[in-house]
């Protein structure tokens, strides 16, 4: 038996050190492209860390968002940055572009002071964490007690969509705010893309239905196993990213009110359902126990549509945004 314990400890130790080493190299690498690739690898190892901590839901979310969107977003932003500042940001070069700023004499002292301060706070935080009791159940007892009346059997989905559904409502608004913020910067770029190479065409043509199937599966399985709206929405969003990358652009007419409806449908459903339950049950977002399961599924499916549309539009705006404003907003 101790053989497995040792192997598990070795796995965790290598993973923990790997995370720290990757983060340090990613943040202090001489070249931006290398930094981003190291950061993508860091995201992969984070998913492994969640798996080792029995957090399958979080691992699924990290995988869907980290591998699906963050990597593509950073690469696209770097590419646009390079065309804009036409400096040699990526790739090998004698003098790496944007080396970490050289330390003039004056700031070497302040750099040392900063290191000192940071190591002191690390020690403080480390001691604080170490002094915590080694066994505590937190709120898991309360969740287990009320799980049967929450309408779903997966505790994380029960917390996200029922016990703390107010947090999820505010978080849908945060997603909407991100899109509004990005739109107010650059508007929506209806930039026509060249028809893709045949291989990319077949790749996206074959993968898209599989993505949609997997997203539907994750949404459905979310009620009683790791999965749910965020993971399904992120996978669907990654489908949008893949299609956008392979040159597909939604028709201009689709980009007006249908897109706005898709973006706001998640938050709108939460608000309407919330006010409905306020009238009937006297408490905001208090689902009647009988219909709790159905209501959660309705909320989750609309939230999936909203998250997917938001993530795809965020990628589109960041990756190919330019001065063009959206047509409709300009007219009135």
């Amino acid at each position, binding site marked *: 038996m101790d053989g497995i314990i040792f192997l598990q400890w070795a796995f965790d130790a290598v993973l923990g050190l790997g995370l720290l080493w990757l983060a340090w190299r990613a943040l202090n690498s001489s070249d931006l492209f290398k930094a981003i690739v190291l950061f993508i690898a860091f995201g992969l190892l984070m998913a492994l860390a969640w798996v080792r901590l029995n957090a399958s839901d979080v691992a699924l979310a990290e995988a869907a968002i980290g591998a699906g969107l963050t990597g593509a977003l950073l690469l696209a932003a770097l590419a646009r940055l390079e065309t804009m500042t036409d400096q040699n940001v990526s790739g090998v070069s004698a003098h790496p572009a944007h080396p970490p700023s050289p330390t003039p004499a004056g700031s070497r002292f302040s750099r040392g002071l900063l290191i000192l301060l940071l190591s002191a706070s690390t020690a403080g935080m480390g001691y*604080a964490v170490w002094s915590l009791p080694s066994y505590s159940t937190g709120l898991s007892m309360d969740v287990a007690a009320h799980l049967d009346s929450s309408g779903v059997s997966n505790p994380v989905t029960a917390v996200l969509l029922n016990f703390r559904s107010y947090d999820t409502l*505010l978080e849908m608004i945060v997603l909407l*705010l991100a899109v509004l913020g990005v739109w107010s910067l650059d508007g929506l770029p209806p930039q026509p893309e060249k028809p893709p190479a045949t291989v990319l065409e077949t790749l996206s043509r074959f993968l898209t239905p599989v993505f949609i199937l997997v997203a539907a599966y994750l949404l459905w399985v979310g009620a009683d196993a790791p999965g749910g709206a965020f993971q399904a929405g992120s996978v669907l969003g990654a489908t949008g990213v893949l299609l956008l990358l392979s040159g597909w652009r939604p028709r201009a007419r689709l980009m007006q009110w249908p897109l706005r409806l898709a973006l706001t449908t998640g*938050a709108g459903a939460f608000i309407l359902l*919330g006010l409905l339950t306020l009238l009937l049950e006297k408490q905001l977002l208090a689902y009647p126990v009988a219909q709790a399961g159905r209501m959660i599924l309705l909320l989750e499916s609309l939230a999936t549509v909203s998250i997917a549309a938001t993530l795809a539009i965020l990628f589109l705006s960041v990756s190919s945004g330019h001065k063009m404003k959206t047509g409709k907003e300009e007219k009135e």
Partner: protein
Amino acid sequence: MLIGLLNIDWGVITIMLPLAGGIACVLWPAMSKPAGLISVTGVVLAIAGLGWRIMENGTYRHAVGGWGAPLGIDLFADGLSLVMLIMTALVGLGISFYAKRFFSPCDAVRFWPIWLLLLAALNALFLSADIFNLYVALEMTGLAAVALTALTGRIDALGGAMRYLLATLLGSLAYLLGVVLLYHDAGSVDIATLAQRIEPNAAVWTALGLMSAGLALKTALFPLSFWLPPAHASAPAPVSALLSALVIKASFYILLRLWLELFGAFAEGVSMLLGLLGAAAILWGSLQALRQTRIKLLVAYSTVAQIGYLFLIYPLALVSNGMAASMAAYLAFSHALAKSAMFLAAGNLMQFGGHDRIADLDRAVQRLPLTVAAFALAGVSIMGLPPSSGFVGKWLLLDAAMSQGRWDLAVVMIIGGLLAAGYIFKVLGYAFTQAEVPHDARAVPAEMEWAALLLAIGAILLGFMAPQIFALIHPDLAVNASEAGTVWTA
């Protein structure tokens, strides 16, 4: 019927109405201006209903989802959050009427949905009793504020917004790490449950330090105020007013709430530090404001200074005798009214002259009487001259400082008041003189001038209503409040 009106859940409506308004603006961009105004006036009425309900049957508590405190999230409103909500509603109303005429159609379509969601975030933040929920509300406020700051798209606005976004994300993450430590120490994220369970051990001390640092960064307390002037000065006028008057008060409110409920009992050392930084903020902010050549930068540095006054609450041991909540809320309310009036007046002067260089104000007082009057009245409140609310707040602070023998803080406050007078009269002086190079002037709509003036008059009128505000927060301290009133009339 009256009783029916009373037990409507006003707290929930103050959050849901602006959310619905924001989504309506996104769905139907053409109607964003009317939808925005209707939502803001609706919020003012809802908060009036909430105030009435609190006056009738004490603090307001609503268990969202019906699960109750440790498991679910509670909405909670007492006197302190009610005054902050009233501040948000009134200042928001004034700024909304100003923004009605300020923005071009294409900017208006972008301003209104983000502003309504920001208003909903502020209301959610002042009503929440759950520290993780406060984190999500803080992120919402931060993202909305950054999106509004970068609305104009000019280089200085983008630079200011970028610096502001990085600072606010850093502040939120420090606060979140504090939440993590508190949750794993006490097993709950609800403030009331935490208050009973935590005792001063290493984890709680570290959480206190992290949360105070994160929230001080978001409130731009002196050494961490590097991001405020570029962001507040380069944003469009109504957005600068929103940022200075409301957004930085949100993180100040959370720090105060945590202090009153959780950390107040055992955190003397840190309160000394916060007081020291507050005093330094007053001096540094005022001196920087004196040196500025542009009105909006001057007003932004004045914000950094006035924030210092708010942080003097901590060292003056007011927490023990219960005056801290009412003093802080009153000072925040008076600063919000005066500062928003100042920024709106600065916006008018910029629209009028095409620039905001103080030296070339060129007889602004003859040509924009209402705006300069608004700036002057707001200046009276910032300086702390009677009968303004600034005076009553600073007088009570001075009284508390002297009664506790803290002469150093008293001296700092007086110097702060003199420096404030310095930079206010500097602007007013130029407003009366003839500038060397006369330049063409564009007309400023009447609504914009009246919005600034009404907010400034509000700052003055608040001085008369001090006893009512104090009674709102501490019904049992009524006698003390009326004594505060008499102090003013004497």
